């Protein structure tokens, strides 16, 4: 596992934010970058690499990576649908949206489609309650979801995948 030049620069910038001896503070931001560089998940090699960069013990990285729900410890699909299902989204029909995605993609929560394109990851409140139902897709939120909108998103992802291949 290796960081690209550009990311390495970013990593060093982040480490430099903290006072001497407090570089462990950079752990979570760097794990985000590492996950991006590693197809959306963190394997042991990657985490050990981060431990060396920050001069901390590997277990300190594992402890943190397993605590936060945004870090994936198993491979995920190219596009991860994180559909919120907490109260306010539920009031606006998130259950139906989740069911629709499950049926359409033929996967359950926590699963990835066989073509490796989609993962459905259950999510709790993402802070978009007023724009429910919603999901997180990559860096951005997709809000006011309807079945039609879900169709469009899935098509969009498929097109992107085709283009990039």
């Amino acid at each position, binding site marked *: 596992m290796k960081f690209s030049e550009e990311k390495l620069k970013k990593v060093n910038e982040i480490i430099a934010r903290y006072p001497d001896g407090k570089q462990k503070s950079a752990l979570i931001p760097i794990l985000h970058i590492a996950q991006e560089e590693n197809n959306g998940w963190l394997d*042991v090699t990657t985490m050990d690499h981060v431990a060396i960069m920050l001069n901390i*013990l*590997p*277990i*300190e990285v*594992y*402890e943190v990576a*397993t*605590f936060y*729900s945004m870090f994936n410890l198993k491979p995920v699909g190219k596009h991860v649908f994180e559909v919120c299902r907490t109260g306010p989204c539920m009031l606006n029909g998130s259950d139906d949206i989740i069911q629709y995605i499950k049926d359409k993609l033929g996967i359950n929560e926590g699963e990835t489609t066989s073509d490796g394109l989609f993962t459905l990851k259950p999510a709790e409140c993402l802070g978009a309650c007023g724009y429910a139902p919603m999901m997180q897709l990559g860096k951005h939120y997709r809000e006011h979801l309807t079945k039609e909108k879900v169709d469009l998103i899935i098509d969009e992802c498929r097109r992107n995948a085709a283009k990039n291949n």
Partner: protein
Amino acid sequence: MSEQTPKFKVTIDNITIEVPAGTTILNAAREIGGDVTPPAMCYYSKLEGSGGKCRTCLVEVSKGSEKDPRPMPKLVASCRTTVMDGMEVKNMTSPKVVEARKGVVEMQLLNHPLDCPVCDQAGECHLQDLSYEHGSSTTRTEFERTTFSQEDIGEYIQLHKTRCILCYRCVFAANQLTGKREHGVLMRGDHAEISTFIGKALENEFIGNVIDVCPVGALTDKTFRFKNRVWFTKPVDAHRNCPTCSGKTRLWMRGEEVFRVTARKDKWGEVEEWICNDCRFHKKQASDWVIEGPSKIDRHSVISQNHYQGAVEAQPELVNEIIGKNPKLLFDIHEVSDVNREEIDLSKINGPAHSDNFLANQKAKHERKLKVGRNK
């Protein structure tokens, strides 16, 4: 500096004592001793930063201090709350505490497996003691208990994740004794577990001490020969000339055989001096040791049920002080074991106890039943 430390007066369950400023309520209560002392599952005086997590030591502060007599609005963790001058604390004497503690015990047992009969820790498990002393007798959960994956952490230590109560003691111990921790608490919430994540063998020469600090049977000694029930073995204090640690240990013997080596523990169940792996795991011959004599065990658990020397009994004055509350007896070992006979007084046996001493006796069992019936 210590000479300068002022003394604070604190009253716990109507018993007043003076302690140096900075003392926690729990440690003040330990000075008094007996049932005034709240149970502690996560706090460990020898491990810096421990405590505050398990919530079994909650007490009511009915008077904050002489200066500010207001009571504290919530129950507080006595292990992490320092005394103020004139503070008044209720432990046993607070119905709120008794009730809350019952709740905490219920929560700790909620996902704890019911495998005491096959657990190596049975008989010296603090959770067992806690539930007998402070819990209620029935469980109200109908759900399946959480299970965790098996993880092999090497040839010395057996890890049973399901039994862990997440006291974090072993994490503090590994941090403070080994300097290069290889295990920790992973995951979050009710999925949190003790693990190395990568199935690593723990081999640091002081790592064995995690077994002694673990209050339950989550970390046990894999080299414990023949997996004996602790109450069949007899503890003796011993020492050897060890280049790594103090060499002062406790041997758990049966006849001439050393079944297990542990550190010596004080009356709060805490290790007196850490010992090294070599003493603990590799010195299993009586000839490896200079035996000092039978151990003084005054922790009131099943081990001391057989009247070891120095077993502590509730002082009658205490009962009067704490508004007549009679400290509840622990479960009777004779109720759960067929083998130990109550007429056996281990401390009176000359030399180490031998299996002959434990032969089952049907008559005694019958009498025992009668006695238990009467106690209720």
